[in-house]
């Protein structure tokens, strides 16, 4: 029997295994009290601690040492102690800090949601809707980068990157060598591979799925459609390399994209191989299981497939709103 510890988050008490993080404990409780996580990814060793969206207040350290922690802590990297009490949405301090983090994340993020493939399944979009402030107070030029290709299947649009390091940990985890990493410092830091080289690995396509924003995208899918006009279907095939369990994204009769299956926190259930992702785009390749259930906080599940629903970040910006409308009309005319 492994040891259990008691932790209370926003007044809800739960027993969890010793060594569990606050974030994982909160996910076990579920619902509104789960802190948002933009960089932590349970399948990636070492991830987390960076984006600071998951900050919470520890109002009681433990039964043994009840002192509160002096600063807000990253719930994804802080382990629970027996008797710990945590405040997330019940702490104005946390709400304020999180609003600050979201504002920071949006500083250098282009609000180009109307033309971004990730729109509708972007965690930053969801986050800014739920936790952000109305309008940004940042009045300077945003940093921009040219798009680069990482091999022939993956495109990096660094301008959108929030430097969560998930793709870096993915690359570290699937290969022995350091092939994909961060160059430069501070807000000049960028994700890169050695001279735009493809990551030579059967699982390299997973960097697309782990990316919480639209910085790493599938070149075999780009610009074909907005996700909320596509229909996700779970399917599998007998694959010699991976589990073969995927989600197929349909537009009419055509499979226009293949991804791994994501849970309600945007994490894939299992990584899939590049053959399944990039090369199997016919219904015949797959055994269909049925429609994919989409997490209820996402724009897609809100039944926005067929209506004009500008993402929240756009609502206050007339130019983007116009662009979004145009895009909507163009797409629905097809």
């Amino acid at each position, binding site marked *: 029997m492994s040891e259990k510890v008691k932790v209370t988050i926003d007044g809800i008490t739960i027993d969890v295994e010793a060594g569990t993080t606050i974030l994982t404990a909160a996910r076990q409780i579920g619902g509104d009290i789960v802190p948002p996580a933009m960089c932590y990814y349970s399948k990636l060793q070492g991830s987390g601690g960076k984006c600071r969206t998951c*900050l919470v207040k520890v109002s009681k350290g433990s039964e043994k040492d009840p002192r509160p922690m002096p600063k807000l802590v990253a719930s994804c990297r802080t382990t629970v102690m027996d008797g710990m009490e945590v405040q997330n949405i019940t702490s104005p301090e946390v709400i304020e800090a999180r609003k600050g983090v979201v504002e920071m994340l949006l500083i250098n993020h282009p609000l180009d949601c109307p033309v971004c493939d990730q729109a509708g399944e972007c965690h930053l979009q969801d986050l800014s809707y739920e936790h952000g402030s109305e309008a940004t107070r940042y009045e*300077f030029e945003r940093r921009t980068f040219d798009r680069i290709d990482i091999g022939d299947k993956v495109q990096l649009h660094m301008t959108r990157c*929030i*430097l969560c390091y998930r793709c870096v940990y993915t690359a570290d985890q699937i290969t022995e060598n350091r092939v994909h990493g961060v160059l430069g*410092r501070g807000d000049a830091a960028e994700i890169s591979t050695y001279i735009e080289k493809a990551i030579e690995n059967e699982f390299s396509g997973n960097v697309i799925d782990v990316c919480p924003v639209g910085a790493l995208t599938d070149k075999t899918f780009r610009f074909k459609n907005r996700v909320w006009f596509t229909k996700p279907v779970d399917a599998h095939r007998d694959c010699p390399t991976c589990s073969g369990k995927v989600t197929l994204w349909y537009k009419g009769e055509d499979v226009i994209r293949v991804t791994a299956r994501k849970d309600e926190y945007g994490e894939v259930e299992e990584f899939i191989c590049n053959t399944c992702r990039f090369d199997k785009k016919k219904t015949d390749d797959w055994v269909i299981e049925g429609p994919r259930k989409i997490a209820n906080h996402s724009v897609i599940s809100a039944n926005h497939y067929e209506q004009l629903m500008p993402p929240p970040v756009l609502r206050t910006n007339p130019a983007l709103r116009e662009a979004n409308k145009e895009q909507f009309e163009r797409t629905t005319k097809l």
Partner: protein
Amino acid sequence: MGRKLLLEHINVPGINTFEVYRQKGGYRAVEKALKSLSPEDVVEEVKKSGLRGRGGAGFPTGMKWSFLAKPEGKPRYLVCNGDESEPGTFKDRYLMTHIPHLLIEGMIVSSYALGANTSYIYVRGEMMPQIRILEKAIAEAKNAGFLGKNILGSGFDLELYVQPGGGAYICGEETALIESLEGKRGNPRIKPPFPAISGLYNCPTVVNNVESIAATVPIINDGGEEYAKIGIGRSTGTKLISASGNLNRPGVYEIELGVPVEEFIYSEEYCGGIANGKRLKAVVAGGSSVPILPTNLILKTVNGESRLMTYESLADGGFASGTMLGSGGFIAYDEDQCIVRNTWNFSRFYHHESCGQCSPCREGTGWMEKVLHRLEYGHGKLSDIDLLVDVSKKIEGNTICPLGDAAAWPVASAIRHFRDEFEWHVTNPQEAMTRNYGLAHYADPLPKVEPVTAS
């Protein structure tokens, strides 16, 4: 004259060589420790001395050492932090340049205390001459039998290596330093685990500043109690201060902790007053990361007591009216200096040096720099001032490492104490481009604190 423990022989010609250093009593501490003290005794002496980390945080060194985990079969490491990149701080470089054997001697004593058989001195990449000096000193010490196998027949082995850094301020943060030493990108680690449990190559590690390690030499020679007699309260011993700015005699001074700030600035023994007959406007007392204070608050605390060069006295008043001793980078500003410009300059530094791992620091430092630039160049708005305060609050305390705080404090404190000057830049943009705001009321005596009576 204050006592000199580190720089006593600094003016002896040839003190940078092993021979002269030894003639002047060098390496006595190694002999004493290895021949007559157990490692635990050495730790005990350092605890008794009350020595606090000289790298900025002021954490008691002996206590830090006693936290070091000692699991069976795992090596332990001592790493000396010679990355010294904090604007206004240049004492470690001075020490390494002129009296390198003091650091080597301290490294041997400290490694012995911690049971480390491989130790590193991580030196800022730009300091190539100092790296060569240290390498030469290590070769000399090894030649004389103070490094290598079975030192002085005690059975204690030690190899000492100098590692040049890549020239990034962030590599002075202890976990970033460890990453860099391992050959990785210098990103601070997310704590816990702390280095004392899992540091270099996942082994228990102590990281100490150059000056902290050097200070163990007089502590072992004279005993921890002797050392603790110098100073006031929990600020014991001597401290190297890097004095710069508009002073008559800038430079590195060894002071006994407890010297009044006023005496440090104006006495002939130390800085000799403000250069060119000007008046003092402000002081950054402990390196660019600590809050800036106007003349009236740096010379006296709000209670009208004389402010002393100690950890406690400089911090008196907390963030509202105090500052910190930090790394001892003492920068004086005369009446001709512009606080807005200085704040912009500091924030440019932190923006440039942020490693970019965590969102508030990566984005917030650049944002503050841009707003400050706008204010300094006459395009600012009054609302910018509150915006800066708010952004600094969003960074402070919400980041992985203290660089975020270090970027936030100078901005928040400059606005707290010099708000009129910021406002003047907005209301008189033309004038602000041609002249400075001047001394204004920043040196006026503080009003008496009114006793608060309960009504």
